């Protein structure tokens, strides 16, 4: 029995966008998540974070690599096994306004998983379970008969969490679960997620672009750039001693809460534009924007390597100590 609940090995997902044009949304991504831990996945818009999440849960078919959940490849499961698998892995979606069917009551939305997997014997058991779930996420049982449009964003996101919890999953993919919410509501939802993790022994893949939130919730953090993981380490290690030039730039770009400090601190912002993910060349994808780039960076592609302390970096500068 592997000690990792989820192992992602060399995952690839390409999209065809035109004749001979292939968008490498996810290109050779690997990571592991231990039972009960949280992996934060950060990166800017369009770097493939959401695609990673959706491919892991098999909303997309992988174009290469493996997703091992409890040691079994998710993408090799047959129909029956897949249905069984959906009980153990669930997803919380980004947009609380699009992720709930506007025609259904909150009760029906939360109960959908119960019905699909026939988890309740009687009608009464079904209703009781829905009430219980709503109360678990901080809503009240009266809400069960309401429609989604009667709720605020934060409440809707709680409904989305209750829906995911209905089937008693072990693993939840939080796909930018908080980025559409107000800051004050973000904190509430994050705290709820942390609380649920402790209570139900959940494992999270936490996809976000808000670095502070990731730092708060994650045990390990991986940074993605253009479909690749460029750096991966324990959260405190990564935030305190970032090594990849992109991570350093990303952390420097995050605003600080203190306005005086924000004014005075040195900002080493990145210049240039993100390269195109369509038919990328096999070179370091950050090379075009990297202030330290040498010819080698534009000829070969660096591998993700352990530079000590379980800190993985895909950068020649760090690996070779320029």
């Amino acid at each position, binding site marked *: 029995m592997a000690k990792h609940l989820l192992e992602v090995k060399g995952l690839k997902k390409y999209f065809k966008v035109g004749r001979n044009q292939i968008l490498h949304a996810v290109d050779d991504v690997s990571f592991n998540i231990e039972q009960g831990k949280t992996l934060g996945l950060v990166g800017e818009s369009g770097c493939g974070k959401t695609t990673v999440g959706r491919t892991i849960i098999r909303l997309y078919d992988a174009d290469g690599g493996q997703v091992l959940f409890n040691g079994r490849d998710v993408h090799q499961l047959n129909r029956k096994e897949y*249905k069984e698998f959906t009980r153990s892995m669930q997803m919380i979606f980004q947009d609380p306004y699009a992720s709930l069917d*506007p025609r259904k009551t909150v009760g029906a939305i939360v109960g959908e998983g119960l019905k699909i997997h026939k988890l309740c014997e009687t009608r009464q058991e079904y209703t009781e379970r829905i009430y219980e779930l709503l109360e678990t996420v901080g809503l009240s049982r009266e809400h069960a008969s309401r429609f989604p449009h009667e709720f605020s964003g934060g409440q809707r996101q709680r409904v989305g969490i209750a829906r995911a919890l209905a089937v008693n999953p072990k693993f939840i993919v939080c796909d930018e679960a908080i980025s559409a919410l107000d800051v004050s509501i973000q904190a509430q939802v994050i705290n709820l997620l942390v609380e649920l993790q402790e209570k139900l022994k959940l494992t999270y893949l936490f996809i976000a672009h808000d670095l502070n939130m990731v730092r708060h919730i994650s045990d390990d953090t991986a940074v993605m750039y253009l479909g690749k993981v460029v750096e991966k380490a324990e959260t405190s290690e990564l935030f305190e001693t970032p090594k990849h030039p992109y991570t350093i730039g990303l952390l420097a770009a995050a605003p600080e809460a203190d306005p005086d400090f924000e004014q005075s601190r040195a900002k080493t912002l990145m210049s240039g534009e993100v390269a195109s993910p369509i038919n990328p060349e096999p070179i370091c994808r950050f090379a075009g924007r990297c202030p330290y780039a040498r010819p080698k960076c534009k000829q070969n592609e660096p591998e993700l390597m352990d530079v000590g302390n379980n800190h993985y970096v895909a950068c020649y500068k760090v690996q070779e100590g320029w």
Partner: protein
Amino acid sequence: MSNMSVKLPADAFRPVKQTSETSELITRPSLTFWADARRRLMKNKVAMLGLIIIFIITLMAIVVPVFSQYSYEQQNLSNTNAPPSTEHIFGTDSHGRDLWVRVWYGARVSLAVGVFGSIIPSLIGIIIGGISGYFGGKVDMIIMRFIDIVMCVPNMIYIILITLFIGTGPVALIIAFAITGWMGTARSVRGMVLQLKEQEFVLASRTLGASSLSLIFEHLVPNTLGIVVVSMTLGVPAAIFQEAFLSFIGLGIKPPIPSWGQLANTGISVFRIYPSQLLIPAALISMTMLSFNLFGDGLRDALDPKLRM
């Protein structure tokens, strides 16, 4: 502004007795989607007026020909073109046939063609559009190109050709409408399904392990239904009008079977002398179309959950 001070003495206020339990209580009764839509529709006076007029016209169409002493084809050549009277409420036509019976018998034909001529093509459109949108890819390409090509030619030409092949009459007209009318619905349903199937709530349902069938019928179809039902309702007057037009130019319902369009066609030849023979069927066509349009409008508002008050 500064001299407009408002005095709010403390004793003008009294505390509202609220506990944490009662403050979260929602007092509005919970309703299912359709019950709620019905409630909102009932509140819409204009739509209800339309519905009542449709109801009265339908009732008259059913009852009048049954209880009248005349039949729609019974001629009385000694009493032609009679003005409205107690004997003949709408008068008689140039063959001495009672127009009251003919108008309400014609209502049966017109309403039947209108209702079925709208519902049947819409159902075909939902099925084809749903398949096209859900499966996408090659299936979608073939169906959509087919529709593009077929839609290049005006409907009327198809209808004329079809009536040439299968003859005239109400059934032939409904078949002709079914063959020519589904494309618009198919396109809009396909568009909606394409959009909906990438929505996060559909993805959420997939991650919960829902099958394709339940995805289509639990999430995709119900979310297109509102718009389809409305377009169906608004399609009824269009079909009635098309029937009237076809009968008017002599391609639809053939005499002696009356329909409103056909009655108007007969009426126009004597319009200068006996205007009521044209005005009565024309007024009924207009009134029915208006009622269906008003009702359809109200239905659209009622079925949109975001407009819920």
